[in-house]
């Protein structure tokens, strides 16, 4: 199930704008990797190249290799749709489908891929909702619209939707930035559980969160305004937070800039 990701010397562009330069990181399977760094340094951009969501933006392109268990997802014969089915994503803003009920939101990935079997869909919905710690809260209103939930519930609904298709890797872009501390804690707990089955990459602005949930941390930074962002350091979370190799990392973590 869970697979490893190797990012090899990746350069990312928005049209002519060189957004990220020369990133090389490895993400082991069943492991949580946190991306931290100041705003605009390209964390979301790198994350979105991992499931080929970057190229959805007109003019955007990627150079370099992203290997999923050794296979380049940017290879010539690779279907981006297939890649996204294998590598799920949770966005910063919860974005349930407004026309669908809670249940249909959760099984949207399967339903849109053509699964009709109602019994199977119900099972998957329950399993995913339990997995996202949302089942008890919504089990009595599965047929109500997903947009009627609270922000934190919506975000967990989106996580349930992402894990319902059973991806090998889960990408999360600041999943807690719009949430209260209790929902945040619920999602952090969830990440701890999900890590037993999935490889997880999470972008966060919250140092404590990175320290709490991740096994390894990658610090990104900008050389200056208009310059491409780059990876400064990637190491075990404990090491990054106690005794980083780079001065910039230490400054950022101790709050001296950014």
């Amino acid at each position: 199930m869970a697979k490893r990701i190797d990012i090899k010397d990746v350069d990312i562009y928005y049209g002519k704008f060189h957004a990220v330069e020369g990133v090389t990181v490895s993400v082991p399977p069943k492991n949580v990797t946190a991306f931290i760094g100041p705003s605009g340094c390209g964390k979301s951009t790198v994350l979105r190249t991992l499931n080929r969501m970057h190229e959805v933006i007109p003019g955007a392109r990627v150079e370099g290799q992203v290997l999923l268990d050794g296979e380049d997802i940017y290879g010539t014969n690779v279907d981006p749709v297939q890649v996204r089915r294998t590598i799920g994503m949770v966005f910063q803003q919860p974005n349930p489908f407004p026309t669908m009920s809670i249940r249909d939101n959760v099984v949207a990935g399967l339903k849109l891929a053509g699964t009709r079997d109602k019994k199977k869909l119900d099972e998957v919905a329950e399993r995913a909702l339990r997995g996202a710690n949302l089942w008890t809260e919504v089990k009595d209103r599965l047929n109500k619209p997903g947009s009627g939930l609270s922000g934190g519930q919506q975000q967990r609904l989106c996580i349930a939707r992402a894990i319902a298709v059973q991806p090998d890797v889960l990408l999360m872009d600041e999943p807690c930035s719009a949430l209260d501390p209790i929902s945040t804690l619920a999602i952090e707990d969830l990440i701890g559980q999900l890590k037993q089955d999935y490889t997880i990459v999470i972008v966060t602005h919250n140092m404590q969160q990175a320290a709490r949930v991740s096994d390894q941390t990658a610090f990104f930074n900008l050389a200056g305004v208009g310059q491409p962002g780059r990876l400064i350091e990637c190491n075990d979370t404990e090491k990054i937070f106690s005794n980083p190799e780079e001065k910039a990392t230490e400054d950022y973590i101790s709050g001296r800039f950014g």
Partner: protein
Amino acid sequence: MTTTDSLVDRPATSPAFQPISGGRKTKNLFATVLVTLAFLLALVPLGWLLVTVVVNGFEAITTSTWWSHSLKGVMPDEVNGGVYHAIYGSVIQSLICAIIAVPVGIFTAIYLVEYGRGKLAKTVTFMVDILSGVPSIVAALFIFALWITAFGFPKSALAVSFALVLLMLPVVVRSTEEMLRLVPDQLREASYALGVPKWKTIVRVVLPTAMSGMVTGVMLAIARVMGETAPVLVLVGYSRSINFDAFDGNMASLPLLIMNELMNPEAAGQLRVWGAALTLILLVMLFNLVAALVSRFSAVRSK
């Protein structure tokens, strides 16, 4: 000592909130009066028109034969017969027009919003702009020159429908485009991220989200073309009896019937003119009502 106010009595700081100044009150009053007057002024012609049409047309549409008979064999001065042949004509011409214009318009809008990039999209947008500025008489003459003169087909309801398509298409493209642009990109991305292909994302996520607005736009466009007069004057002959064949022969429609009865000097003609006008308004209202119902039915529910 005769001090009127000592330092102790005076508040230490002036209060934070001052009463509204006289100048602002006047300006506010002036603005309120102005917008209310403008509103009433805009309402006057609308109310006047409705009252005139209802008062003059009520008698005709309440006669027993109005909704069920045509004017076949009815004398110009005879208060008898009805307009069901013209209602059929108006409805069938608009429907044929909609059957062509709605899919083409919606697909064009989908192309412009979801796929259109660069030169081709700009050209299409430009063409739609031009089309929306074409007067109905010009559209009618164009179809006449193409369909009837060049291709040699007879005048028919179908030719009318073609001219109406030219008028309806830009409205449908525009309103659909607007609705599709309102769908947040986040929803598209959410769908892509689940491994859903683009076309399926459009069909199953984007269109359902925009559906209610699209339906309203289409219904309003149909209501709009139903009252168009120039195409029926140019492209089809008038008939006092029913003709079910849209591909051949004369066919009445409400605007055409009004034009013909206007030339009838008898009182019965006047009655029919107003009756047909009121019928047209009612028909359009019915369409708007259906539009409202359908759009409410397909609206995105949040609770």
